[in-house]
């Protein structure tokens, strides 16, 4: 039988979060499932509408995005979390010595200016009785971490797996406060693989095949960081080889991490976060967390 065309839209430039996809592509796992997968890179964020509308079959997104989308009745469903735990962190240069959330006071925070990020910082500071009002917000938009850290801003919210590693590479010493350690609610899933409601209802076979191959890809990436890094680089030769290699080494361990299976998602995580967003007025109506994700399509081993 002839192969089925499938498009996957990334959430950013190709990076080590996506390695599994490229491995599955390169190693022919998709082929085995008779899938002809095309991986697309946008720049301006993940446009969930494109997946929801079915123009793209799958996409890389985040629990945050899916929750916001569903709150707006956009039928997105998360099929798997690529990383078990939130690898993002508040990072600052060592010399500024921000060790705890309390130290945020009187410092400048450089963010991308989304309301949620403010809510999060406020929340974590309130928890520790710190005064959020003492933090100065700066929106750094599309500019990157290193341009601004220590210049216009003292601490920023980064993905350790990329920016953190780059800092290491440059021998910049960072203080890191991992979000997952601050509050269980902040240990949400990011990034996740999503599709739209219709697919999981009417295209079960396709989704199953795709996830089977993808899971295989991530399994491989988990075992062979170096080789899979090469595969990623082969598909995105523009990337910084050194950075990718190191990033992959760090991240491979974290795909599955402490879970019994890669990609598996817990309802509590989804519920906790959406409730939190609702309480903090980040979404107008709360969502039914059970509908927002499914483990149904993860391969049964």
């Amino acid at each position, binding site marked *: 039988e002839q192969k089925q065309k499938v498009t996957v839209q990334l959430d950013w430039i190709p990076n080590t979060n996506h390695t599994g996809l490229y491995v599955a592509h390169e190693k022919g796992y998709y082929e085995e499932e008779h899938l002809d997968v095309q991986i697309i890179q946008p720049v301006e*964020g993940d*446009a969930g509408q494109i997946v929801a509308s079915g123009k793209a079959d799958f996409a890389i997104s985040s629990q945050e995005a899916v929750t916001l989308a569903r709150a707006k009745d956009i039928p997105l469903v998360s099929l798997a979390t690529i990383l078990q735990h939130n690898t993002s962190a508040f990072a600052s240069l060592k010399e500024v010595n921000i060790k705890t959330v309390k130290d945020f006071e009187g410092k400048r925070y450089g963010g991308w*200016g989304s*309301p949620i990020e403010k809510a999060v910082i406020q929340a974590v500071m309130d928890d520790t009785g710190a005064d959020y009002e003492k933090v100065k917000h700066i*929106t*750094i938009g*599309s*500019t990157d971490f290193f*341009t601004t850290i220590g210049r216009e801003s003292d601490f920023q919210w980064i993905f350790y797996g990329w920016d953190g590693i780059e800092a290491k590479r440059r021998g910049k010493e960072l203080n890191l406060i991992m979000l997952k350690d601050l509050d269980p609610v902040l240990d949400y899933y990011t990034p996740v693989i999503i599709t739209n409601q219709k697919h999981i209802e009417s295209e079960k076979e396709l989704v199953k095949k795709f996830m089977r191959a993808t899971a295989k890809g991530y399994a491989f990436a988990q075992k062979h960081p170096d080789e899979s890094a090469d595969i990623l680089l082969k598909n995105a030769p523009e990337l910084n080889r050194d950075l990718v290699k190191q990033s992959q080494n760090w991240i491979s361990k974290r795909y599955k991490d402490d879970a019994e299976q890669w990609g598996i998602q817990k309802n509590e995580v989804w519920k906790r976060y959406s409730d939190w967003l609702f309480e903090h007025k980040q979404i107008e109506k709360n969502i039914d967390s059970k509908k927002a994700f499914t483990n149904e399509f993860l391969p049964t081993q």
Partner: protein
Amino acid sequence: MKNLSTYMLPVVVLLFLLLLWKAGVEISGIEKWILPAPEVVFQTLWKSRNLIFSHSIQTILESVLGLGIAVLLGVGVAVLMEWSDFLRKLLKPFLIVSQTLPFIVLSPLLIIWLGYGILPKIVIVVLACFFPICINLFDGFRSVDTGMTRLLQSMGANKLQIFRHVTLPSSMPFFFSGLRLAGTYAIGVAVVSEWLGAEKGLGILLIRSAKSYQTETVFAAIIVITLLSLLLVGVIELIARRSIPWHYFNKGEATV
């Protein structure tokens, strides 16, 4: 009468546009989170008018300031290029380079040099707007009727006088078509420039609502952007007609 229709019709057209939009939404049955119906958008527009207004102020400020400076810069550069052939050859490549630099990618540099304030936005607006003005005006200088020039030369007028009395006035039509272009771009560019990093502005509103899937707000913002641009261009049109009436004469009754 003529003027009335001239300034009314666009409105009619816009209404027609909305109808088209509404029809499109109804017929295609497209999901509201991709293309919301106009009435929804206008409700949003009304509901969040204060929010949108406060953002608009910022963007308007950026674009108007930028456009103002762009006019000065554009005219200035054009004059320099007209003044000396050497300067012309020297500047031309710079001009083109200035238009081809993808500033979003260069944001780090811009930020480091200009910080996060309104400055980098204005710089970007200026960069985008001065170019059409400059190029058009310069081409205007180049197509001046030699008769008038020779006349003033025969009277022993100096370069400056010739420029003031012949070159400048006769290239005004070119200048204004450049300005019209610039005016059309100003707002849009200001919006994009805010993506470099800002707290206020329609660009921020756009991105934020897009990211949180508030499509109706996105479209509300776009409508505002469009209206502002139309307004700006309208004003420029008026200025043009005031400042070079002779260009709009129906010469003789040739075209009867």
